[in-house]
């Protein structure tokens, strides 16, 4: 199967001309040696805080930026040489999309679709899902709220039924109901075999909709895993209330951080749950809670260093670069 997106050692430096080494005066390395592969038909999450290099990566894929080193292929085509062919098969939602305020919604969608030379095959369904009525679309864009602009952004990116959708912070400004509608749209696209590359810093969103996730930190890839695998490798928090003696959990595989107080046992559980369940079998348990692992914990683990620095010097923002 061809990768929908494949990058090899993709690097982007700003503020220099010529092959100066990274770290030279005035050079900012927004993306460093990034190699990832997004499979066809998957929903791929690209995670990182603001300034970590997510948008730089997207701008490289779409040809707005030229790589300083490495290469990228989208739908099997080289981003440096086949930009037009790539963009004719891709739909893109920029973060914080800007629209032509003087046009009305329908004219704007027509115009942007005509530039693709493709019919707006999905427009009606998308407008319906996102509750953008014909009357709303006839209003000037300058009258739209932030949420409506974001809906317009989603429609313009997907209306021509692209093979690959690149979405930068797609639910920014959408209310919870519209977020849910958007997730349904993603599920539908995935069901129809479309590939979705979704950049976000909303962890619950990525956890909910993505098959795999890449975590980027200071422009470098720090993790690339299936969401399920990533969560499996995280520790779950266990709380057990007892009416009798506490079961012995010391030495049980995957169990750590055991605390026993009056009628209450708490611990961390990692990996396979079966040894833990076997260890508590027969214990006088009144209540048992195993909190599922969240992507947030994995994410925070990768960013622990930044958080430590931020704690050490208040006011300093994590991340840098693009």
């Amino acid at each position, binding site marked *: 199967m061809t990768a929908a997106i494949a990058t090899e050692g993709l690097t982007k430096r700003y503020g220099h001309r010529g092959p100066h080494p990274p770290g030279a005066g005035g050079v900012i390395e927004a993306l460093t040696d990034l190699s990832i592969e997004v499979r066809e038909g998957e929903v791929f999450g690209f995670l990182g805080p603001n300034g970590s290099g997510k948008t730089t990566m997207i701008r490289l894929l*779409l040809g707005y930026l030229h790589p300083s080193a490495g290469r990228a292929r989208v739908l099997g085509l080289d981003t440096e040489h086949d930009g037009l062919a790539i963009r004719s098969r891709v739909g*893109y939602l920029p973060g*914080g999309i*800007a629209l032509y305020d*003087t046009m009305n919604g329908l004219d704007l969608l027509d115009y*942007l679709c005509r530039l693709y030379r493709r019919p707006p095959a999905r427009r009606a369904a998308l407008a319906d899902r996102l509750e953008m009525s014909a009357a709303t679309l006839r209003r000037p864009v300058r009258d739209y709220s932030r949420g409506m602009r974001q809906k317009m952004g989603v429609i313009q990116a997907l209306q021509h039924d692209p093979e690959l959708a690149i979405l930068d912070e797609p639910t920014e400004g959408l209310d919870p109901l519209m977020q849910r509608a958007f997730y349904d749209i993603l599920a539908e696209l995935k069901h129809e075999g479309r590939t979705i590359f979704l950049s976000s810093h909303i962890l619950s969103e990525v956890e909910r909709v993505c098959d795999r996730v890449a975590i980027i930190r200071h422009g470098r890839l720090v993790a690339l895993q299936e969401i399920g695998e990533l969560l499996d490798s995280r520790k779950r928090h266990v709380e057990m209330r007892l009416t009798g003696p506490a079961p012995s959990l010391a030495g049980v595989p995957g169990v750590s951080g055991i605390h026993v107080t009056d009628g209450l046992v708490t611990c961390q559980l990692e990996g396979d749950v079966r040894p833990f369940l076997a260890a508590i079998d027969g214990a006088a348990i009144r209540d048992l809670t195993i909190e599922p692992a969240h992507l947030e914990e994995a994410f925070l683990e990768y960013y622990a260093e930044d958080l430590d620095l931020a704690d050490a010097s208040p006011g300093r923002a994590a991340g840098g670069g693009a």
Partner: protein
Amino acid sequence: MDRVLFIRTLQAQRSKLLIVAVALGIWGVLMPLIYAQLIDTPLGARFKEMIDSGLFPAQFAQFGGGNLFTLPGSIALGFIHPIFVAIVCVFAIGFTVAAVAGERQRGTLEVVLARPISRRKAYGSLLGATIVLVGLAILAMVAGTLASSAVFGKLDELDLGQVPLLWLNTVLLYIALGSVALAASVSFDRLAQALGITLGFALVSYFFQILGSLWPDAEPLQPFSLFHYLDPAAILDGTGDPFDLVLLALVTLLVVGWALVVFPRRDLAAPS
């Protein structure tokens, strides 16, 4: 050139075109009207006596090579007057500077270039729109001038065969300025930078030409001005220099060529 982008650009500018065309049409009407008043009325005759007496410097009535006391001279004056220059620059500089740098700053360029349009095609569409807009705006001025000359019965004082050449030379001058503006627009990330460079270039260029026409010692500066290569009085007299057209076309081609090389190679910064 991308047809969809070209048409959309023209549509977006149509209100501005209408306003500028009306303003230039009125300006075009004004020059033959002033000439008719100076020639046909006692007040005009007294004014001519005053100028001829040497009370005012001769340059006052012959600003930039024009002449208030001949029809071709007054029309020429209209074509180099700062008011005319300022109005035409709405398109030649205002529109072109904002066309790329402004859209990039706002973020709308990102949405357009996410479509399968090469940067060269996008540039070609904007340049094409600039040519059409400048051409139509100056046509309105020419139409106003001819209509006014006809109304005041002065059309026979004009060699009508030279009028298309005057239109062409004027259009070429402002397209050259527009191409400089568009080149600045594709070269800078921020609108203010592109606008500053272009306005600076246009103002210095205009200043050199006018200074040279008012002060003989400054004449050597004139060839460095793009405005030097539009001599409406000479064109209407039938003594225009074809080199002016060639030079303006060459400047345009050079600047366009430079922009076509630079624009596709540039990194497009994220919108601010």
